[in-house]
């Protein structure tokens, strides 16, 4: 079985982004970029499934400009077998990405698509569900455990109150949550080898899809800072403030 894994190039999670002075967008010039951490987890899961003999090939796909080659190199160093870069002039919206991925899926016919649950830049958490809907496939989102047989995936999902297990017929879309696995560190020899591997490039125009943005970002800003309060010197002082000033605790003796 072939597994398709999607990866996105995003601002590194250690970078604190700044809003541009004119409030038009965030400033990503000269900022460290990396593979979206949830996509690393998705790729790690696919590589592990291959190492267990449950998958034959791991194909990674990304959508973006040619600079996105760096995350594909990382994916190769982690164990991907083949890669596709869908060349888009600008970062498409999740709906457009889902349409691009549908076209890739129709060409590649994977048995399973594993994706990160969300990208840490736009925090949308949409693309996996959208791809599944466009394909008419089942989905298992927020996965913390994936068990595969030839026709069905049993997926444990992180839900609000705990965990839930579903069975989805393959082909299906699975999205990875934080605790599905711990991605391996890439080794220097693997990084060197990755540099020589081929990246197939598809121009988005050749897919004949409408990928024009539907949403317009009017402005971005830093969230209004919450006014910090006071430091108190002791537990009794804290309790006095909570009872009499904030009034979130009942007065002493009334409990």
């Amino acid at each position, binding site marked *: 079985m072939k597994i398709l894994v999607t990866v996105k190039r995003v601002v590194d999670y250690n970078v604190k982004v700044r809003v541009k002075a004119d409030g038009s967008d965030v400033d990503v010039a000269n900022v460290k970029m990396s593979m979206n951490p949830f996509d690393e987890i998705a790729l790690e899961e696919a590589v592990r499934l291959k190492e267990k003999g449950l998958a034959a090939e791991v194909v990674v796909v990304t959508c973006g400009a040619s600079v996105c080659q760096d995350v594909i190199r990382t994916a190769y160093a982690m164990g991907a077998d083949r890669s596709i870069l869908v060349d888009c002039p600008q970062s498409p919206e999740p*709906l457009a990405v889902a349409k691009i991925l549908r076209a890739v899926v129709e060409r590649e016919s994977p048995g399973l698509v594993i994706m990160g649950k969300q990208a840490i830049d736009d925090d949308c958490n949409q693309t996996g569900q959208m791809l599944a809907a466009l394909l008419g496939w089942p989905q298992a989102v*927020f996965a913390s455990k994936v068990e595969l047989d030839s026709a069905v995936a049993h997926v444990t999902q992180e839900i609000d109150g705990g965990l839930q297990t579903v069975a989805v017929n393959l082909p299906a879309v699975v999205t990875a949550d934080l605790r599905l696995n711990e991605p391996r560190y890439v080794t220097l020899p693997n990084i060197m080898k990755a540099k020589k591997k081929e990246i197939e490039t598809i121009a988005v125009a050749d897919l004949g899809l409408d990928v024009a943005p539907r949403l317009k970002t009017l402005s971005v800003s830093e969230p209004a800072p919450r006014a910090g309060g006071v430091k108190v010197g002791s537990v009794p002082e804290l309790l006095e403030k909570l009872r009499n000033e904030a009034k979130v605790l009942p007065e002493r003796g009334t409990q």
Partner: protein
Amino acid sequence: MSALVLVEHDGGRINSAVAGCVAAARQWADAAGVGVVALLCVSESASEAAGALGKEAARLKGIDKVLVAKGSAHGTPMAEALANQLVSVVKSQSITGVFIAATSLGKAVMPRVAALLDVSPLSEVSRVVGKNVFERLVYAGNVVATVQSDQPVQVATVRSTSFEGLGALPADAPAAPIEAAECVSVFDASRFISKALSVSDRPELQSARVVVSGGRALGSAEQYQSVLLPLAEKLGAALGASRAAVDAGYAPNDCQVGQTGKVVAPELYIAVGLSGAIQHLAGMKDSKVIVAINKDPEAPIFQVADYGLVGDLFELVPELTLQL
């Protein structure tokens, strides 16, 4: 034309996150000059509970009509069948805005609905600015984006803690009418197998009045329990945790408060031994009163805390528990 709200429930009670979602939908509907329809999806067998849920939904302030879709497709709530049901109702009821609380189920359902309607949706809307303008947080809560959508249907999840619930109608007010909606067919390529809900005597994190949350400074799972649990018990509080504490194995996954975990807004949030990483702050900064206990006076958590107490948590928390 109407707004549509998905009424998520567990078979017995309406999910507490629905209240904020109804408030957001009402704000949007008022801006757009339309009504609000609530959709309740229930299993075939749940006749009595379904009736009670329908009546409860019909008494929610801000709802003009309740639709009940009853059938085997909704035995256990599954994203695929719910999305198909929502799309069916959008088409039959001329819906122009779909609002779903950003619960784990809501996040799974909403993008499917949007894709099937060929619409670019908005995730975790935190403010309705107008009928086609919304605010949402991006970059782990570091940035607020104001986004315009001129599409024929608005599809969004709602960050419920950002909206004040409207509550129930007064006893003498007439309830909204309840109508049946045609149930979609079963989506049989996915099946529910089992659910393992965390067993806890503590209140549910997202609806608790008080939350006691711990960070990595607790040092171990045992100390997380032995230090925080007595305080939580005394306050009737839910237990939360920072991502660092969850990653270290001190607390279960579903305790995690933050942009990628739970978003909470209790009346009182007590942060113990956690530094206040920005992604954690995004999950709790709407709390009414924040107390921070940390030994590092420079910890960022003190910048958002109403009351900060600098010192050793292993001394201060038991002292606080004792004096309550």
